[in-house]
């Protein structure tokens, strides 16, 4: 006789076949990002800054959409390699710096170093704290290996049982 868990609230036997699960297809997150991008694009088209008017001009949504996709790519990189966050977060930091530089280049007067005006005030801290520091900290850290963790658990349980 197969037995399942019992619900603590209603007392019914819980059948795993009836359980609602949130498992998505691989393209689902991409689709959601596309939908949000289209929403931003549509809002930009109908809004000219002063009042709602179909102006047929893109004013700000390109940056918002690019930023959304940047977040998506960064998150996917980290999710793809959760154990290599120390490498993936710096990659995201570099992408973010490029994004900020692009915005600065787009906005005049472009008279500073490498034609950037204010972006350096953002890029330099990002490069320091998001790119260099995580890699340096990871290299400098005495991190227990997965085998050390297993050994610790086994020895702890053996001592507890004894």
């Amino acid at each position: 006789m197969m037995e399942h868990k019992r619900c603590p609230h209603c007392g019914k036997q819980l059948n795993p076949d009836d359980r609602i699960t949130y498992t998505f297809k691989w393209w689902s997150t991409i689709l959601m990002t596309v939908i949000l991008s289209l929403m931003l694009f549509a809002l930009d088209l109908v809004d000219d800054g002063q009042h709602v008017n179909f102006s047929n001009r893109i004013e700000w949504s390109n940056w918002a959409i690019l930023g959304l996709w940047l977040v998506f790519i960064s998150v996917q990189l980290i999710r793809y390699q959760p154990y290599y966050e120390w490498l993936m977060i710096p990659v995201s930091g570099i992408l973010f710096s490029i994004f900020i530089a692009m915005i600065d280049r787009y906005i005049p007067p472009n008279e500073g170093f490498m034609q950037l005006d204010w972006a350096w005030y953002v890029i330099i801290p990002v490069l320091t704290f998001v790119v260099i520091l995580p890699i340096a900290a990871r290299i400098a850290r005495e991190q227990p290996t997965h085998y050390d963790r297993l050994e610790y658990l086994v020895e702890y349980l053996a001592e507890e049982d004894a």
Partner: protein
Amino acid sequence: MTAQIETDGREKIPTPAREPLYKTSYRYLLRELHIIGDGLISGLSESLALVKRIFNPKSVDRAIQPQAAWFHIKPAQPNGRAVLLCHGFAATPEIFRELAETLANAGYYVRAIRLSGHGTSLGHLAQTTAVDWFASVVWHYQQTKENYDNITFVGHSLGGTLGMILATIYPLQSMIAMCSPVELDIPPAKFVREASILVKYWPRSRRKREALDREGLSSYRASPLYAIGGIFEATQMVRDRADHLTLPMLYVKAVNDHKTLIVQPEKIKKYLTSTPVTFKIAENSPHSVLQGPERELIHEWILDWLETH
């Protein structure tokens, strides 16, 4: 409610005081809002979960596939003994359905373990290692130990290796390992975790995938390279604690197994010197012995072993 008979002979039924209109309206409004709220939550929960996946790198599918959950079977006529069943890497407890029924019919309490990261999603499995899998085994052992003193461990592949580690800590009655590794001679595997930066999932062979489809099992179609490193950690732990392993063990070898697993009996003789090991050879079986052509023979071997130990 009892009716009162008044002196004039007419029946008078007492009625409760009527609720004020504003209270009734308020109650009905709350109920309606509750229904609307429930509807909105149930309708939007999946979309919100998807939006969350854009921004939250930790949101990995951890929902257990319905057919892959752990299960236990209490026998109709119990003999007071328990059997723990543990599946291998990238498999699920589903592989033990037939064996579990057979053992329960013979009077054993059967509990099929689901290892952490298995039966959920590949992304989840990629985040687990040997310590997580072993924690699952220990939890099920401790749950079983509350009711049963006489426990036998049956493990397939990685499950058998984890069972050997368990046997070095806790007093098991005996154990059965099927195609379980103790040492894998694959030198490039040392760099499997570094390789996983570039290639996260390695697809399983077409033959293996076809076999899984034929059996209708919910196993994964690929193997996360990072998690494969955990198998080597588990085998390393067995070799390091081999002196503590003293219980009688039955080892089933499949002739049509991978070449690194066929030589495991020699490895067991080399490393597990303080364990009396009995070897059985399944001549026509692949690595998945419980889905192979000799499954009934292997069920017999397991039942015989349980009766004699």
